[in-house]
């Protein structure tokens, strides 16, 4: 649905995107993650046909965004990070105005159905100016769906919401996938991405650092960490000794729960030998499951070292 090759965007002397590549397949939820200012919104705006790339090719729904004359030619549903509506229109009038744009007609029943679907059935006749941030976000999702597009591009759809609002938006995204939609969404909340996405792309300082299906990304070789729970409290002298074992890079935790980060080829028998030598009884010992946050932080650290 989306194929981006060598996408570059310069704002005067500042290079916001430095030749990124990405591919979004039909029917998947693609999570686009990166720090604030990494280039997520710039990419989103280009994909939505609202900004022109400096260089590179960008196919959205089979259309080259550099050759379109109007954003609506891309036939996508777009939700900006902070969707701006006319405060003096009601929710119904807003969707009516957007729905009946570009020579299309949308029935009142469809508008009511959409508002109901996003949980705004009580606010149909209320002016948008009085809506909370979460309600505007829901209305934005309804607006993106008004013409029933196959591809949805959501820029930080849940980032500014409270936990309940975030949960609702993520559930809506999952429902949309079940309806056969393809969703490309950006976020800097990694747990959100981990919860709903099929594929993840990491952008760091305008460059794609990684792009993989989520399960594959979570299997990635990041430096191993071990979570250890001891039977009895230990003193800080033991912790110091532990961190001096060859191959141990960092020891964190308290007197009962330890987290030991090691080199890639660390021999775990050294840890067990240490516990036996120091007469330390161990309640549990487990290698930590990779989380998207670990992968992401490793990519950020790698990028920092390179730059």
């Amino acid at each position, binding site marked *: 649905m989306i194929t981006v090759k060598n996408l570059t965007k310069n704002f005067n002397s500042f290079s916001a995107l430095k030749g990124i590549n990405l591919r979004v397949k039909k029917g998947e939820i693609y999570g686009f993650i990166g720090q604030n200012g990494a280039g997520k919104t710039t990419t989103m705006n280009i994909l939505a*046909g*609202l*900004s022109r790339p400096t260089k590179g090719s960008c196919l959205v729904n089979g259309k080259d965004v550099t050759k379109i004359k*109007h954003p*609506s030619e891309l036939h996508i549903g777009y939700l900006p990070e902070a969707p701006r509506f006319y405060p003096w*229109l009601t929710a119904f009038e807003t969707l009516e105005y957007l729905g009946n*744009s570009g020579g299309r007609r949308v029935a009142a029943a469809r508008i009511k159905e959409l508002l109901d679907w996003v949980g705004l059935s009580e606010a149909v006749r209320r002016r948008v100016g009085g809506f909370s941030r979460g309600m505007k976000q829901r209305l934005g999702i309804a607006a993106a769906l008004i013409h029933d597009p196959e591809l949805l591009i959501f820029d930080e759809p849940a980032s500014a919401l409270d936990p309940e609002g975030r949960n609702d938006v993520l559930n809506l995204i999952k429902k949309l996938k079940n309806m056969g939609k393809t969703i490309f969404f950006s976020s800097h909340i990694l747990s959100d991405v981990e919860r709903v996405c099929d594929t993840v792309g990491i952008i760091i300082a305008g460059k794609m650092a990684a792009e993989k299906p989520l399960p594959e990304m979570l299997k990635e070789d990041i430096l191993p960490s071990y979570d250890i729970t001891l039977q009895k409290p230990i003193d800080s002298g033991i912790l110091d000794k532990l961190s001096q074992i060859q191959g141990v890079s960092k020891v964190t935790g308290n007197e009962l729960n330890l987290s030991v980060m090691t080199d890639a080829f660390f021999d775990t028998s050294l840890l067990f030998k240490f516990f036996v030598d120091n007469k330390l009884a161990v309640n549990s010992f487990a290698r930590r499951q990779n989380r998207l946050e670990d992968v992401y932080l490793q990519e950020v650290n790698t990028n920092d070292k390179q730059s």
Partner: protein
Amino acid sequence: MINSLRKEIRYGLRNNTFLILFAVFFFFAFMTPVMLKILPEVLKSKFPGFPLQELVNMTQLGCLQSYMGDVLEIGTLLVSLALCGLLAQEIRDNTLVLPLCAGQSYSGIIAAKMLVFGTAVLLIPLAALVTDYLYAGLLFSFDTGILPVITGGLLQGFYMVYLLSLLLLFGTLTKNPIATALLTLAVNYGLYFAGSLLDIHRYLPSGLLREAQQLQNTIPLQAAVITLAIIIACAFLASRTLQTLEWSKK
């Protein structure tokens, strides 16, 4: 198109834009006859023997011409301030992003604003001038025909449509309502003074206002054609500029 027109009408009604335009023109329409009527009484008590009749035309025609002068000096300022955010504010606030993604055309956006607010600024000055004519007739006497008044009102309204087209074009260029108003006023007053200085009003939109003020039921054809051409050019350029804008802000 009806969809866009409905949205602009709702904007005008719910943000009191029509009400402000109405108030601006009708304030002058009611005030000028009253001022001319009570001025001699006020001056008579303060300055006995002051030859006011020789300085001011104390007739219905005088009222109408005084009203026209007020509209040029203050009316254009107030209209510019009332309508400066029509497009500039929308660009600055990014409220056009969703309509554009939904399929609103650039030219449709401009056309809807021109049609709705163009009609308002064409008809409201006309209605205000007719009101001024009737009120001045009641206070003084009906010494002027209605036809020159209607022609004058339409010329004045047409000038306001030209002002609106400038506001839309400068709105796309500056993306800032106040800068749009200031730029429009600078062009408006600048062209008026240039017209007076070089005696070229007949080739400028200001020729419409000059002719309207004469209330002679004549249409300055050259000025009207040039104004129409400027209005079309401004609307076209505004649409083109809108198309080339980068909606890159969050």
